């Protein structure tokens, strides 16, 4: 996490707190740069996500897709530019003079309230049983009543098809089951935005379909905004309304799945899709 946050000038095209109309996107990347030393991962990236939209990020390895999710989850700091979520800067605070400066832990915790994340390697807490993995944060972070949190956790486990595993240790579950618990754990925090970082990449092939089906259900039955980094093109096609094709830290092409998969405009997109489909 060794990154310098350059002093920020107000981005030219950003009206102060642009909450003016109903069309303001839920997530807006405004010239976001992410550098590791000299290596530029994201290069003045601009893109927006509307509320309730399901967006898939595709592109070759190292194109910066995962970095986008990690920036949104505040696991990394932006090197330059601003990420806006619901009209507020995600990882910056306003100084009295109106300029933006990097936020401290307190403000970051405020920003994280809206966002949940599911990781490639599940990252369940091995020291907690399945139920506690799901209730720990609702009880201790949201201050939810313990019984209420447990009831909700059981409902979520039911939703992900694991109602029988309440008292299991994560180590006793298969990868697919662990990932379902991780999804339930993220949903328990009632996020407005759910970030899915290659959630099926670490799973055995026969377990992938079940997890994708579950995510499809969640996409259809909730109004949670979803950003998915995935190599599952079928998922991108079936679940998302928008596909963003990345290469070398930039959006090469974006559009509906039909458009991207059947009639891509950009040569890089065609090459990539030929390689993975």
């Amino acid at each position, binding site marked *: 996490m060794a990154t310098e946050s350059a002093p920020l000038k107000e981005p030219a095209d950003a009206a102060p707190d642009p909450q003016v109309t109903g069309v303001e996107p839920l997530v807006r990347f405004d010239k976001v740069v992410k550098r590791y030393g000299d290596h530029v991962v994201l290069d003045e990236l601009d893109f927006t996500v509307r509320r309730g939209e399901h967006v898939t990020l595709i592109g070759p390895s190292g194109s910066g897709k995962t970095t986008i999710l990690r920036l949104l989850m505040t696991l990394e700091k932006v090197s330059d530019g601003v990420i806006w979520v619901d009209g507020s800067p995600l990882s910056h605070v306003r100084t009295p003079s109106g300029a933006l400066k990097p936020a401290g832990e307190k403000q970051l915790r405020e920003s994280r309230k809206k966002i*949940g994340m599911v990781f490639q390697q599940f*990252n369940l*807490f091995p*020291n907690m049983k399945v139920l506690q993995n799901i209730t720990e*944060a609702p009880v*201790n972070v949201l201050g939810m009543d313990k019984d209420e949190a447990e009831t909700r956790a059981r409902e979520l486990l039911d939703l992900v098809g694991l109602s029988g595993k309440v008292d*299991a*240790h994560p180590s006793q579950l298969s990868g697919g089951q662990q990932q379902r618990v991780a999804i339930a*754990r993220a949903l328990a925090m009632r996020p407005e935005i759910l970030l899915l970082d290659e959630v099926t990449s670490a799973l055995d092939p026969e377990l992938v379909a079940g997890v994708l089906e579950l995510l499809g259900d969640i996409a259809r039955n909730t109004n949670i905004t979803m950003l998915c980094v995935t190599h599952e093109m079928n998922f991108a096609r079936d679940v998302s309304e928008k596909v963003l094709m990345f290469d070398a830290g930039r959006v090469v092409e974006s559009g509906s799945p039909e458009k991207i998969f059947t009639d891509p405009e950009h040569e890089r997109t065609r090459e990539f899709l030929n390689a993975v489909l």
Partner: protein
Amino acid sequence: MSDFLSILGEEFPQVRSGLWVTLEATVLGSLVALLLSFVLGLAAGSKLLLVRGVSRTVVEFFRGTSLYIQLFWLYYAMPPLTGYELTPLVCGIVAFGLNYGAYGSEIVRGAINSVPRAQYEAAVALNMTPFHRMRKVIMPQAWVQMIPSFTNLLIQLLKCTPLLWLLSAADLMTAIEHVRSRSGETLTTYLVLLAVYFVLAYALTLLMNMLERTAKRRLGLHTGAGSLLKTRTAEAAATAGGAR
């Protein structure tokens, strides 16, 4: 030999209270060491340079100066310097605590660092506070890694307690040494001492193995039958735990 036994019989109350002093020094010394291990080990991971620097300095100082000399300092040099006089037992507890706390802090620091970063990230994604992350996610996992190394330190600390003899504390070593000087049975005396310390050390090992099993069970890790009686080394345990 019969001389030795009869004198040992006569000296039994002193030997028994000596054993008690040795156990006191071990248990209290290791509690001080444990506390210091966590304080210094957590401070070593602080964001603040000053806190890290203080921790580093304390650790290097107490690790780098001999335990003998620390004991002599506390017992002989401190009273004229400060006017306070500590009993030999308290000197022992403080010196063992400081010395082994310095070593222990490295165990705590290393174990915390060995918890995969992904665990920290998952806790951040659930919006836990830094304290909550440490207490509920990082520390319970790090603790399992610490136990085998702490077992080693605890046994080393026990084996240092005969140093209390140098301060004329009435510990086990002093009491049995007294039996030797009265009976003249050097060989038997030292054999008995070897045996007694071995039994004490082994008892501590078994206790710590039980602790480790409990901690591992809490992580849902399989603990094979019979591992209670196996003397585990820090290396073996580190690889077993490190695979996670």
